[in-house]
């Protein structure tokens, strides 16, 4: 499996610029082409882009939805060759975005709105965090209820230990070799070393499934194929509209991700990209994003999550460690030693 994943990553890198995006949407009929590439599902971001197209009738906006690794490979190739770059890129795989900014692939922009961002959501004035999304445990409400619902990782570990048969093959999480976001969450978990090791052991004991794509994982939870899914983005759970899917913000610690936005150095519509950034940070759009679940309200009163349990993944050069080849190999090795592949039928 790990060989296959690496081959896939390699292929994605080599064929990056050729690999087609997952989906494309067009907004507006203006004269000026404006290209956005993102990992965010079109369905989720659509109202925001539509509103921007409304405000800027001069634009013909193309929104391309990419897988995070492919988007990274494409953006890196664009940066190296200077060919056909997007005007704005935002991705949930923020470590890849940090790498791109560190490789001088972005251009700087400052405005009152960007300056108002906290330091963990802004780096070099070239990378900005536009959303607030917790990594959550999604569970099937019919299969788990009341006291059975694990409120933190220790409870989850205990539950797995107590009822291995119940959970066998019914815990899902991202395949971290496939998904940049999954890898980022796994890496962040690995920094909280003790629970992460125990958790992977527990997952391996019940033959947890590492698979791809938020939508499929959540659909699986909704159908009852999976009892719970570990480390999925809260925004996807909220958008799934599945009544049976519950969401846990683990109380020991909850990773909180902020999608990173950058303006590629060679962007043709850099000024428009800057306007779009300011637009994304307006309270109007933040409210729209909150409806889509991209801006979660993480209040202690609402979620029972204390401030000390909130682990923001900061936009900083220390995320470069996540992309280090040796480190990645070790994590993937550890992962693949533990997991069964969810691809097997």
């Amino acid at each position, binding site marked *: 499996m790990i060989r296959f994943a690496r081959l896939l990553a390699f292929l994605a890198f080599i064929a990056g610029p050729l690999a087609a995006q997952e989906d494309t949407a067009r907004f507006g009929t203006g004269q000026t082409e404006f290209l956005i590439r993102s990992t965010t599902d079109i369905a989720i971001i659509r109202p925001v882009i539509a509103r921007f197209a409304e405000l800027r009738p001069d634009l013909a906006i193309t929104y391309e939805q990419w897988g995070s690794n492919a988007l990274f490979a494409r953006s890196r190739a664009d940066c190296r060759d200077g060919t056909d770059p997007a005007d704005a890129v935002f991705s949930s795989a923020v470590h890849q975005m940090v790498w791109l900014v560190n*490789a*001088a692939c972005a251009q700087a922009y400052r405005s009152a709105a960007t300056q108002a961002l906290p*330091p963990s959501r802004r780096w070099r004035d070239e990378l900005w965090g536009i959303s607030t999304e917790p990594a959550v445990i999604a569970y099937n409400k019919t299969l788990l209820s009341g006291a059975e619902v694990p409120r933190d990782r220790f409870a989850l570990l205990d539950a797995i230990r107590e009822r291995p048969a119940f959970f066998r093959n019914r815990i899902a999480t991202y395949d971290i070799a496939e998904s940049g976001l999954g890898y980022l969450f796994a890496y962040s978990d690995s*920094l909280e070393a003790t629970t992460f090791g125990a958790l992977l052991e527990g997952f391996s004991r019940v033959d947890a499934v590492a698979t791809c794509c938020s939508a499929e994982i959540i659909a699986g939870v909704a159908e009852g194929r999976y009892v719970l899914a570990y480390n999925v983005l809260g925004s996807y759970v909220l958008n799934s509209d599945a009544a049976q899917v519950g969401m846990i913000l683990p109380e020991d610690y909850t990773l909180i991700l902020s999608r990173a936005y950058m303006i590629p150095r060679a962007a043709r519509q850099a000024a428009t990209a800057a306007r779009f950034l300011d637009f994304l940070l307006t309270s109007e759009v933040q409210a729209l994003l909150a409806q889509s679940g991209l801006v979660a309200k993480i209040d202690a009163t609402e979620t029972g999550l204390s401030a000390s349990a909130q682990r923001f993944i900061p936009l*900083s050069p*220390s995320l*470069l*460690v996540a992309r*280090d080849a*040796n480190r990645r190999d070790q994590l993937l090795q550890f992962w693949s030693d533990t997991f069964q592949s969810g691809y097997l039928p």
Partner: protein
Amino acid sequence: MAEPRALATRVLVAVLSILLLGGVLVAASTWWNGQQAARQSYDRILLGAANDIAESIRIQGGAPVVVLPVSAFELLAQAPDDRVYYAVHGPGGVLITGLDPQFWIEPPRPGRAGFFDAALDGEPARFVTVTRRFVEREFSGSVEVVVGQTLRARATMTRELSIDALLPMALAGGALLLIAWAVVRTAMRPLEAITEDLARRDPYDLTAVPTEGLPREMQVMLGAMNRFMGRLDGQVDAMRTLISDTAHQLRTPVAAIRIQAESAMSEDEPALRSRALDRLLSRTRSLGTLLEQLLSRALVVHRGDSAPRVLVDLRDVALEIMEHDDHALISPGTPLKLAIGDRPVMVRADAFSLGEAGRNLLSNALAHGAPPVTIGAERRGTDAILWVRDNGPGPRDAVLARLGERFNRSADSRESGAGIGLSIVKSVATAFGGRMETAQDAEGFRIALVLPAERDAP
């Protein structure tokens, strides 16, 4: 032509230039210091991160493996806005791990630890190389860690350090400038007052400029100016005196000559006519003497102010008068004696003026005194004396009291003897800081010109 700049402006411009030059030098040195400080601090961070990474290298399965420590990057994040670079090379420069497998920075001296500067994606950056040697059963060789960082934080720190250091200095500079301005203004105020005084002064006003409370240098300058004006004033006075004297003195004799000439013309009898002509001649001669004396006095007064003072031996003066045989004309047959000693009698004065004074003393004695007449020079204490003695009783007390005044022509004085003679002596005495002295004793009357003696030449 541009108006010359005021003294205060010049001084202020100079002070400003000095302050500016000093400011530039201080700023440059502060900047340099700040840069050094920033470089050292961030170099240490860089080295710490590189060592951290080097520490994390393990040998696994015969090959070095890096478990990249997050702490190294948290250290590098002390410069929060700087891009970073890292790479770990095995023996032969093989990349073990790094930021980007397709791109790496070549250290300028491979295999040697140390700092170097290079560009990182077109931005200047600082790098450090750390080498770690392994001697294990499975692997032996050195592994090189290169860590680099762009310079934004260093630039910021340099700027902040410099500004922190320069701000108080700039304030101090401003304060110094203000103080300098105040000091210059204060120092220049008397000068300005004088300038104003001079500008408003009537060009004919030759009175002295007041010098109280002025700095010494300016007192010297003003003193010289005041002396000059005083001399000018004296000259003007002398000129005025000369004109009025001449008018006063000449009017009567010239009128007398005219009358005598007329009466001589109207006289038919040869004897009477000849007598009238004789009188006319005598009058004319007397007028000549008078004129000479007037001019002599004017000259003496003028020279007293303007002739350079030289060392003169009063004995020479006496000798010269003696040898000059003018006195024979005035009073032929009167015996004349010279009384001088061996020692020189030196004064610092104008020889011509002294000669004139002596001649007048002598002619006075010849004219009014009784023979024999003696002329002499002597030194008495700090006084140098040129004197003339006759054997007579001297003038009456009333005359004596007014001796040397102008136009003092007594009933006794004949027409040829004008009151001018002794006034010349008095002028000379005044001009050279001396006085006129008279003495009456059993041997006769002595009149003397007393001047301060020059100290003996060694």
